[in-house]
C-alpha cells in the first residue's frame, strides 16, 4: 500500500506528463495543418507530371528501347529500397509500420537470392533497420535541420538515386513512405520508381487531372528539341518529384500519427489521474477514520 505522499507525487508526475502530451498534441495539430496544405499544394505538379510522362511514353515507338530510367536495365538482381521515415519518435506506430513494410520486402527479396541496398531518409527508420540490415544500408540522409520541406530538399535525393542508377549500382528502385489518407489513417506504401511505373501513374493522374482526354497514344507530339533530350531531363526530374511528394505525404502522416498518439496519451493520463485521485482520497479517509477510532477507543478505555 503506497503512502499518501507516494500517491500525491504520483498524481503530480502524471499531471506533468499530461501537460506535455497535451502540448505535443496541439503542436502536432498546428503542424499537421501546414503539412497537409503543402502536401495538397504539391499534388497538381506530380499529377501533371504523370500525365506528361504517360503522354511521352505513349508516343515513344515501342521496341525502340527508350532510356534506362523508363524501361529499367532489363535485369532484376539488385534492388534499392529508399525508406522514408520521420526524424522524431513519439508518433505511434508511424515509423514502425513503414519499416515493417520495408523489412518484409527486403526479406522477401533476400529469400529470392537478390541483392538489397537500402537508403534511409530519416533517422528513426535507420535506427530500426540497422538491427537486421546494417550491412545493406548504404546511406543515411537526415532532414532533421529542415523546418519547411522544399523541393530543394528532395532534389539531391532524387539526383543521388539517378546517379547510382547510372553507375549500375541497382536495377530496381522502390520508395517506401506513408500515404496520408486522413488524420487517423496513414497507409504505408511501396512505390516503384525505376523502372518508371508510367501506366498506373498516368491513369491515376488522369482520373483527377484535367488532362484526362489527352491520354496515351491518341496524340502525336512535336518535340522541341527532341524526344530523347526531353526524356533525359524529364525522367530524373520525375524521380525527384516523386521523392518530394513522398516526403510531403510522410510529413503530413507523421504529424497526423503523432496527433492521434498524443491524444490517446492525454486521455490515458486523464484516466490515470482520476483513478489515483480516488485511491488517494480513499486512503486519506481511511487514515482519518483510523485515527478517530484510535482516539475514541482510547477515551472509552479511560
Amino acid at each position, binding site marked *: 500500500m503506497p503512502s499518501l505522499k507516494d500517491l500525491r507525487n504520483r498524481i503530480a508526475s502524471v499531471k506533468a506528463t499530461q501537460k506535455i502530451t497535451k502540448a505535443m498534441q496541439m503542436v502536432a495539430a498546428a503542424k499537421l495543418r501546414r503539412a497537409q496544405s503543402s502536401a495538397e499544394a*504539391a499534388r*497538381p505538379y506530380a499529377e*501533371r507530371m504523370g500525365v*506528361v510522362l504517360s503522354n511521352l511514353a505513349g508516343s515513344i515507338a515501342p521496341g525502340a528501347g527508350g532510356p534506362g530510367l523508363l524501361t529499367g536495365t532489363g535485369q532484376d538482381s539488385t534492388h534499392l529500397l529508399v525508406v522514408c521515415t520521420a526524424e522524431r519518435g513519439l508518433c505511434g506506430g508511424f515509423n514502425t509500420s513503414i519499416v515493417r513494410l520495408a523489412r518484409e520486402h527486403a526479406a522477401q527479396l533476400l529469400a529470392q537470392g537478390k541483392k538489397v541496398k537500402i537508403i534511409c531518409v530519416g533517422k528513426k527508420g535507420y535506427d530500426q533497420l540497422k538491427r537486421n540490415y546494417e550491412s545493406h544500408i548504404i546511406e543515411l540522409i537526415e532532414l532533421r535541420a529542415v523546418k519547411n520541406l522544399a*523541393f530543394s530538399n528532395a532534389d539531391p535525393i532524387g539526383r543521388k538515386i539517378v546517379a547510382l542508377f547510372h553507375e549500375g549500382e541497382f536495377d530496381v528502385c522502390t520508395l517506401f513512405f506513408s500515404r496520408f489518407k486522413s488524420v487517423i489513417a496513414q497507409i504505408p506504401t511501396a512505390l516503384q520508381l525505376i523502372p518508371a511505373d508510367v501506366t498506373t501513374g498516368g491513369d491515376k493522374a488522369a482520373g483527377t487531372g484535367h*488532362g484526362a482526354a489527352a491520354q496515351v497514344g491518341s496524340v502525336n507530339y512535336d518535340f*522541341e528539341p527532341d524526344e530523347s533530350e526531353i526524356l533525359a531531363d524529364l525522367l530524373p526530374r520525375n524521380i525527384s518529384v516523386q521523392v518530394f511528394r513522398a516526403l510531403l505525404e510522410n510529413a503530413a502522416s507523421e504529424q497526423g500519427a503523432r496527433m492521434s498518439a498524443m491524444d490517446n496519451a492525454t486521455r490515458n493520463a486523464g484516466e490515470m489521474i482520476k483513478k489515483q485521485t480516488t485511491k488517494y482520497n480513499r486512503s486519506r479517509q481511511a487514515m482519518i477514520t483510523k485515527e478517530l477510532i484510535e482516539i475514541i477507543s482510547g477515551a472509552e478505555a479511560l
Partner: protein
Amino acid sequence: MSSFHFEIVAPEKLMFSGSVQSVTFASSEGEMTVFANHAPLMAMLKPGIITVNEEGGAVQKLFVKGGFADVAPTGLTVLAETALPLADLNAAAIDTHIADAQTDLDVAKTLESKRLASEKLDQMRELKAALAL
C-alpha cells in the same frame, strides 16, 4: 478570339490555372507564343519570363527557372522548376539562382552535365542583363 486552358505548376504549388488567350514563353529553341488550337507540342523551357494574356485582357508575367511546356489538345501545362511572379523577382533572388547554377557547374562531373550547367548559367546571366537588375 478563342481561349484555352492554361496551367503553370511548380513543385510546391499550382501557380496559375485558368482560361487565357495566349501564352508566350522562352523554349530552348527560342521564344514562342501559343494560341488556342495549337498542335500538340512538348518543349523544354529555359530560364525566362512567361507572359500570360488572360481571357479578360489582364496580363501576368511570371519568372521560371527552366521546366517543360506541354501543349495538348486540352490546353497548355507548364511544369516549372521554380516559378514566381515577376514582381517578386529582384536582384538578390536572381543572384542566388546564379550562385546555384555556378555550384551546379562546379560539382558537375561529366562533360554532358558540365555543358548543361554552363548553358543554364549563361542563360541566367543573360536574363539578369535583360531585366537590367
